[in-house]
């Protein structure tokens, strides 16, 4: 296994030489990047650059062909999806992934980090701590007065918030968001930015986003992907003025 603490500096997440090939096509090719504690990193890039695949690889949805992903010293590429979650990685999907037939309360409760085994789920008690936490999160995601409605009745933007809330209740150290404001109205977008600003405290966040205004608002550092490789990395200003980035992405 990988020795721990061999690096000069301990990053929260170290991705090194990550490669995945689908039938010979390398969707992610020898990718390396590092995310610090409490850092907000935005990944941008044209369609097909491999952005979502990177998140899939980190959370275990896709298995890498080569390379390593270390999170707090543990090698994620060898862990199951649920182990990766328990290690502290949370993932929001691109299209809102919520449970339509359950109420908003129940949606949030399922992500409450207790009773995740079969036995634990059978004996799980909805105690005051759970109720308080669910209500607290519901308030943050603007859904407090809809706790007992079925999630199916929410608007697209509200569904996105609900899923963000589900991650929030899970309290991951690394939060990965795939296009959190896609398909939202302007007012929803503003509220979402506000929401993200509240929840990113005390954790690292990895965001994929196309909305450059939004990216500028939240990003500490930006990584530009193109054809599975890093095209450019650094502050927003640096990336924006990089001629290669302008040519393949921003120029469009």
């Amino acid at each position, binding site marked *: 296994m990988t020795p721990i603490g061999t690096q000069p500096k301990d990053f929260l997440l170290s991705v090194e030489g990550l490669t995945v090939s689908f039938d010979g096509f390398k969707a992610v090719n020898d990718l390396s990047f590092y995310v610090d504690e409490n850092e907000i990193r935005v990944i941008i890039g044209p369609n097909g650059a491999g952005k979502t695949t990177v998140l899939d690889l980190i959370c275990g*949805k896709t298995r890498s062909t080569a390379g390593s992903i270390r999170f707090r010293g543990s090698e994620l590429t060898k862990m199951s999806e*649920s182990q990766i979650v328990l290690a502290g990685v949370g993932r929001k999907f691109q299209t809102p992934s919520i*449970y339509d*037939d359950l109420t908003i309360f129940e949606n949030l409760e*399922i992500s409450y*980090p207790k009773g995740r*085994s079969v036995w634990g*789920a*059978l004996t799980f008690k909805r105690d005051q701590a759970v109720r308080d936490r669910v209500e607290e999160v519901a308030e943050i995601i603007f859904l407090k007065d809809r706790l007992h409605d079925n999630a199916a009745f929410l608007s697209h933007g509200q569904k996105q918030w609900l899923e963000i809330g589900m991650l929030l209740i*899970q309290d991951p150290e690394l939060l990965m968001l795939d296009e959190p404001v896609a398909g939202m109205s302007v007012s929803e977008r503003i509220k979402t930015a506000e929401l993200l600003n509240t929840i990113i405290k005390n954790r690292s966040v990895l965001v994929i986003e196309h909305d450059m205004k939004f990216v500028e608002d939240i990003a500490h550092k930006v990584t530009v992907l193109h054809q599975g490789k890093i095209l450019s990395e650094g502050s927003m200003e640096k990336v924006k003025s990089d001629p290669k980035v302008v040519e393949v992405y921003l120029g469009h």
Partner: protein
Amino acid sequence: MTRAPSFMDRKDLLALAAVAALLLIVFPLALDGFRLNLVGKYLTYAFVAVGLVMCWGYGGILSLGQGLFFGLGGYGMAMYLKLEASSVENTKIQSTPGIPDFMDWNQLTELPWFWHPFHSFPLTLILIVLVPAAFALLIGSAMFKRRVSGVYFAIITQALAAIATILIIGQQGYTGGVNGITDLRTLMGWDIRTDSAKFILYFVNAILLMGVICCALFVRSSKLGRILVAMREKEDRVRFSGYSVANFQIFVFCLGAVFAAIGGAMFTLQVGFMSPSLVGIVPSIEMVIFTAVGGRLSIFGAVYGTLLVNFAKTSLSESFPELWLLGLGGLFIAVVLFFPNGLAGIWRDYVQPSIDRVFRLRSKDPTDPGQNVAKQAASMPAE
């Protein structure tokens, strides 16, 4: 009204009371011994249907092989009863006395090893639950850990039911072959063929069924029940919320298997035999149809669906035997197309609202405390 356990709300309690009234009072009073025994037989299928509600309705796992588990439970009980019926003095005309008659006919001279545990009744009861659970665990682990699901899983379970039938028929000396295990007489010295025994067994069966229903209600109301629904809808979201989806699928599949096995054992006790005709593809699919007709999301609907289809089967197949299978297929298609939530859906969409309307009208009337409504609601509730 006494306080309901926390896993049942008022509606569940009413529905349970209605089922109890129907099974424990109405049927025993209204039906003669023969018909009551027939209903008892139908109710053994309801165990399977309740299991399918959990497995298919809630968990989204369609098993077309529940007959396998029904059979495992039924054969377990049959093996015990057969051994008791095959005492040395009962079988002294055989060339090897003390073994079941069909073994003797097949030139077996010794009881096969897997029959030995069934000399003991407590051990038999344990095995009736444990063997199907172990099988389900094995099948479930092999399938769900590899993320086999949906139609592929359904086809594999159907194949397993077919294999089980072929094995039972092929291994005549060990299983009784196509005839099954017949000529069962006593349970620990108590003759199960008498009318009074059948009457008592009917009640044992009905009460066990209520126990299974309560167990299903408990699972449904736990967080596990909600995780099942969540898995059915967005399996990946559950997985990436830190759950091992496969373990939950295995659990609910095992639960369905155990329910089916208890039904199978009660079938053997009430009907007096067990044969491969109850294990294969056709009975397995019939059980899915009972569930669909009752409403695959309704634990109580499963009981009504099973009873209704079987009453229809008995009366129609007596008059039009060749049309019955076609009718059954047509019924399944009709339910899936027009009433995807089965009887329970019809109840919820058409009957319940009018009851609620009456309830609202009545509750405005100060002279009526709303008791009539409770009675009406109890007459045929679903979910």
